[in-house]
């Protein structure tokens, strides 16, 4: 009852924000109701259709989660948004493409799909890791004491440089990925048919997240990372090599992004130099949604965003008779970004700070 007895002074801004909040909730409720009841004669989706949308959402959400972990790790330790993280992801996916072509030509992918996928994952992960570490060394380390916006602008620049270097070096076309037969088709789990590629994506993502959780919580490296994120100077006094720990953090973020690159391609089947931008932004949204700096939060945020993005356009908009809702997929993601940052910048798991 406290908020009744001592109301906060309502500012003009506060009023605007509350009005926005109410309008949003009304929009979501009305949209979902209209779609689910099929009121306006809009197309109705079968329960199987909804289920497939949700499974697809989980699969792409776990990729977002892997990328989001990179944002969260770096933010947790340096308090900067590594805007170029999407490009680190792209670098891994692109390398994966060449490796996949080579593997397909040698016939390894057909003969031993597990070995093939492991080689694919490892090569992408290592490439992304190298790009991430170089980026930190060249662009971010000299700026560690600069005002906050300076590293952000550098990161935007680095993102452009990486994108257009890849475009220049490997060409600007969108390339179709040679998917091995092993990951085509469906499998049935508990009576639900699931695309094999999506299943592999989810399993790989979950394994990697467990590995990361173990690394951060249970190992020496993880402990020094946590120490550096608490207080760099004290950590240095305790004998932790701060520079190396930060580089390790970027390396781990890069490894995860590289894996995400391969998994993303399993779902969407193509690579191009510009592929990093949207997943990068979405993963950042996921990271903020889960509370930036929070590892479990990034995973939850990724899944939430993936499902919302997959289900949202149809659920919210088709009830109003909006045509081709799939075009507005990215609007849902960006709106989520804006809404989360405006109303809950500390995320669902984070606590309100200053």
């Amino acid at each position: 009852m406290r908020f009744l007895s001592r109301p906060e002074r309502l500012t003009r801004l506060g009023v605007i924000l509350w009005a926005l909040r109410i309008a949003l909730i009304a929009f979501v409720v009305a949209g979902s109701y209209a779609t689910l009841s099929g009121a306006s004669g809009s197309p109705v989706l079968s329960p199987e259709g909804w289920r497939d949308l949700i499974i697809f959402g989980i699969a792409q959400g776990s990729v977002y989660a892997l990328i989001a972990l990179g944002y969260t790790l770096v933010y947790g330790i340096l308090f900067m948004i590594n805007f170029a993280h999407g490009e680190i992801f792209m670098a891994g996916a692109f390398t994966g493409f060449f490796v996949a072509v080579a593997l397909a030509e040698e016939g390894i992918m057909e003969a031993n799909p597990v070995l093939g996928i492991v080689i694919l994952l490892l090569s992408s992960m290592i490439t992304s890791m190298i790009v991430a570490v170089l980026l930190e060394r060249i662009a971010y380390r000299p700026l560690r004491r600069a005002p906050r916006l300076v590293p952000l602008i550098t990161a935007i620049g680095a993102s452009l440089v990486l994108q257009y270097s890849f475009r220049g070096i490997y060409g600007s076309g969108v390339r179709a990925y040679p998917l091995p037969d092993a990951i085509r088709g469906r499998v049935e789990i508990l009576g639900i048919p699931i695309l094999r590629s999506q299943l592999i994506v989810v399993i790989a993502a979950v394994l990697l997240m467990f590995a990361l959780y173990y690394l951060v919580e249970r190992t020496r490296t993880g402990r020094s990372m946590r120490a550096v994120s608490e207080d760099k100077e004290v950590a240095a006094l305790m004998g932790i090599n701060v520079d190396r720990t930060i580089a390790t953090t970027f390396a781990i973020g890069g490894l995860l992004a590289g894996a995400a690159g391969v998994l993303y391609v399993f779902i969407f089947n193509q690579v191009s130099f510009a592929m990093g931008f949207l997943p990068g932004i979405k993963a950042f949204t996921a990271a903020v949604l889960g509370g930036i700096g929070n590892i479990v939060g990034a995973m939850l945020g990724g899944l939430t965003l993936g499902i919302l993005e997959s289900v949202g356009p149809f659920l919210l908009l088709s009830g109003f008779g909006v045509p081709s809702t799939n075009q507005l997929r990215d609007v849902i993601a960006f709106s989520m970004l804006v809404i989360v940052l405006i109303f809950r910048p500390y995320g669902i798991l984070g606590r309100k700070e200053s």
Partner: protein
Amino acid sequence: MNERRRPVDPRLVLKRAAGMGAIAGLVGVYLSLVGIVERFETRNVVTGVVTLGLLTVAIAILVAAFVAPRLPRAWGMAEPSRGLKFAASLLAGAAAAAVLVLFLIAVESLDLRDIFPNASPSLARILSLGMDGPTGWAALAAMCLAIGAIAGALHALRSRDRQPLVAAMAAVLLVSLMEPFLNNVFLQLRQNALAGFVYERSGLTIPAALLVFFVVLAVGAFETYRGEQARERVDSLPEATRRNVKYVTLFFVGVLLLILPHLMGVFLSEVVGTVGLYILMGLGLNIVVGYAGLLDLGYVAFFAVGAYATALLTSPASSLGLGLDFWIALPIVMVIAAITGITIGAPVLRLRGDYLAIVTLGFGEIVRILLLSDALRPIFGGAQGILAIPPPEIGDLRLAGPVNLYYPILAFVILGAFVAWTLANSRIGRAWNAMREDEEVAAATGINTTNYKLLAFAIGAVFGCVAGAFLSVKIGVVFPQRLDILVSITVLSLIILGGMGSIRGVILGAFVLVGLPELLREFAEYRLLIYGGVLVTMMLLRPEGLLPNRSRQRELHEEHDAEETQYQQRAGGDTGAPAISTP
């Protein structure tokens, strides 16, 4: 502190030089694979002597070989001897040669084009200076070594002799790159003979290059040896004379600006018009980013709002079908702009700097996707956009075509610069300054930070919308494809290049980053790569920009200076004095 330096260790110096040379070689490999070398090869710098493609590689090696013998201060070593410096530069050249020759052999013997489309035989031909096989490898190696030797020789000169020389070389490159502009002007003035003397096949002729080189060298030498005296004499002129000189200069600049489109012809006027739009946007974003310190990555949203609002109001073919006169529509657009600025600004103001940047980026993308979507097609026309936007009219004069449109754009740029300048030096500008430097302190001194932030957003939005309005009448149609985040990035890059908070900087930045790529087709393809490079290098090496705003410069170097004093204190600790004195 300099007296207690360690003696030079030649092995360390040479090791560093070899490393830097190898890095320069790798940069050369990168430039080749990205395609810059081959693409820029079509442009002559001095026709028949130097082409731009190979020059980019040469400059990378020259810089590395020149920097190599300059030891970082942290090493605490004495200055290397001249011989050692020369050896280090030469070694850097040799290391670069080794890397590049290996790369050349790889390109010639393996077919890498499946992966690297640019690793083609024509690239190999460029790198081997047009020779075949081992002769080509030797030629490439000789070139690298020669560059190393030049860098070493530059070290032998005194720095005041070196500066005019470097300036003269840079001037030749610059005048050569101005070819599309100057050549066009010469032809417009029917000075065909002059054009033929200066330029030949996109590059300078040899006599013209020599002329530019020696003129700049002479001016530079005069500046070095007699500059101080000359400046004193100018300073001792009476106040009135100096003021008159200033007015006369201003007058001539004004006349030049007025007749410029007739000197330049249609194509160049078009380019300058585009630059003008970017100057307007730059001035607007500069208020938001440079003055108020709010990094807005969705500035294109205002540009788009301005363009679409103008199109909706003036085009008879739009969904509103009003067909208003441009000059009646413009004030309405400006009001819409201010409202949009405040609407977008209000909810995001509480956010910290980096979150604000990302949210505004989100807004920019949302605007673009909505404009492009089928759902809003009845209003905004989807991917086709809105057609048939009439040009503005003054009386009976239709301001159609780039030459005529130049004048209203120029007028608005001057007006915008004036407004920005006035704001910066007003109470509002000082409030923004205070807010940018420390928001809490500013709030404590009674500045209503919310209102001032909203004001910055609103004014910035008006600038962006006016630029958008002119875009729509300039090309006569608006469509959403070109209104993407890259516009925001371009505007941000030109501000960063020129210097945040600096009006002169915005103008310089717009001409370099928007004007040059429009003129040099070779650059256009690598525009965004160059913008990215500009953002990174400026932030790393010169965060205050090329033409900095003074208070801003102080702000960015404050921390640096504080750090330096700290180091000095620590160094003092070595000599026995207390490192940190406690009162």
